[in-house]
């Protein structure tokens, strides 16, 4: 099993979700995060005081999948999250030691 973690632009969540759904990914977990990167931040102004906000809103998608599906899923994410502009984000893949479904106690591929 692998965990695929993608940091993407918030407005790309819907299309990525749809794409993964089509690849019959049955579950995923999403977190609102703030990203710091090459993409330049936002300038905000309050009563003439200027602040540079470096952390931009991003969305983190986590999906744990069987090894063999990892590549196709990664590809799908890239395809649907890309705009081609700086700030599109990253995909990180991690090893997973174990997976359990709480409701049934199932483990391994059957659990996701």
């Amino acid at each position, binding site marked *: 099993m692998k965990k695929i973690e993608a940091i993407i632009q918030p*407005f790309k969540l*819907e299309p990525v979700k749809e794409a993964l759904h089509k690849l019959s990914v049955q579950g995923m977990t999403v977190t609102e995060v703030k990203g710091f990167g090459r993409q330049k931040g*936002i*300038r*905000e*102004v*309050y009563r003439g005081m200027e602040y540079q906000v470096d952390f931009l809103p991003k969305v983190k998608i986590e999906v744990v999948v069987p090894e063999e599906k990892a590549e196709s899923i990664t590809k799908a994410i890239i395809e649907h999250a890309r705009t081609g502009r700086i700030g599109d984000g990253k995909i990180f893949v991690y090893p997973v030691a174990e997976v359990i479904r709480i409701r049934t106690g199932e483990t391994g591929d059957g659990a996701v």
Partner: protein
Amino acid sequence: MNSGDTAFVLACAALVLLMTPGLALFYGGMVRSKNILNTLMQTYIIIALVGVQWAVFGYSLAFGPDTGAGLIGNLSYFGLQGVGPEPFATYSETIPHQAFMVFQAMFAIITPALIVGAWVERFKFSTFLVFILLWATLVYDPVAHWVWGDGGWLKDFGALDFAGGTVVHINAGIAAFAAALIIGRRQGYGSEAMIPHNLPMTVLGAGILWFGWFGFNAGSALAADGLATIAFVNTHFATCGAALGWMAVEWLVRGKPTMLGVASGAVAGLVAITPAAGFVGPMSAIIIGVLAGVFCYLAVLAKPKMGYDDSLDVVGVHMVGGIWGALATGLFASKAVNDAGADGLFFGNPALLGIQVVAVLVTMVYSFVISLILFKVLDATMGLRVESEEEVAGLDISAHQETGYSL
């Protein structure tokens, strides 16, 4: 001059001013959080912009001496010259002329602010400012003159509009329709979820509107008397009826009553009773209200099928509610309630309904055509919409470099 009447009209003017911040909340709660400040900003800056316009020449166009054909006032009140602290008997013998003027200023302000709901989340701010100034001058001021101005042709024609169903709500509602048609839909409309970001804010806005509307309707009597009381009472009970009406029909159609529905119903009732407030009895007011809730809910339901994106349902609530109110005045008005008015269809006088229909149609055609022309010209010159990325990022950041919340 009468101190009770003056106290009343000034208090009512303050109440009507408060309606615009109330409207800002009502609308603001329904947009997405990335556009909250832009929505509030549009509403607030209209107070300032139309306020100054009114003082400089708007009041003169609307309520100045008629130029002759009943179409517009002349500029003799330019810069409020001659509009002083003494009463001006043409409009009221018991309150200062300036009190009448400033009470009317609040109406001139809230009317264009109502349109904002149609185009939020995508309208370019600089173009918006120009549009508002032109619309206030070319649409609101003349129509106000027709219906309320001394020598205005619709007034003389016999149309009844107690507190502005035609001038305010139909007028703004049809302009909103033009806006939705020309400006086009928000990106993602129909596919993405566009969920109100803060419904308690909307609900508070509805509460403030209800409160302020007492000033709007009862204040239109321009005196603290029996007529003002009648208008106050009708305003309250129609609104109660409309909240119940919307809730009931939504419960039937969708299976659940909603808070947004009750808030929307209340506003629909306030709109619908506006033209009738000083002409009908309280039981008629309840009926007008209940049906306003039903009709506006159905109008709102129909919108997605029609394909235009009137973001916050200005058409469904203000235009439909306003038309219903104008027609209902033609049905339920009674001289027994107010002998300065007229009897409606249900009190034996079908003619009034015809007059009301004419007044409605004339306003709709005029406002729609001028609004359309304004939008077309501004589209060709300044551009109506923000850039696509600006819309995605939200107008708070892209147009104002601010964010609403940092909780």
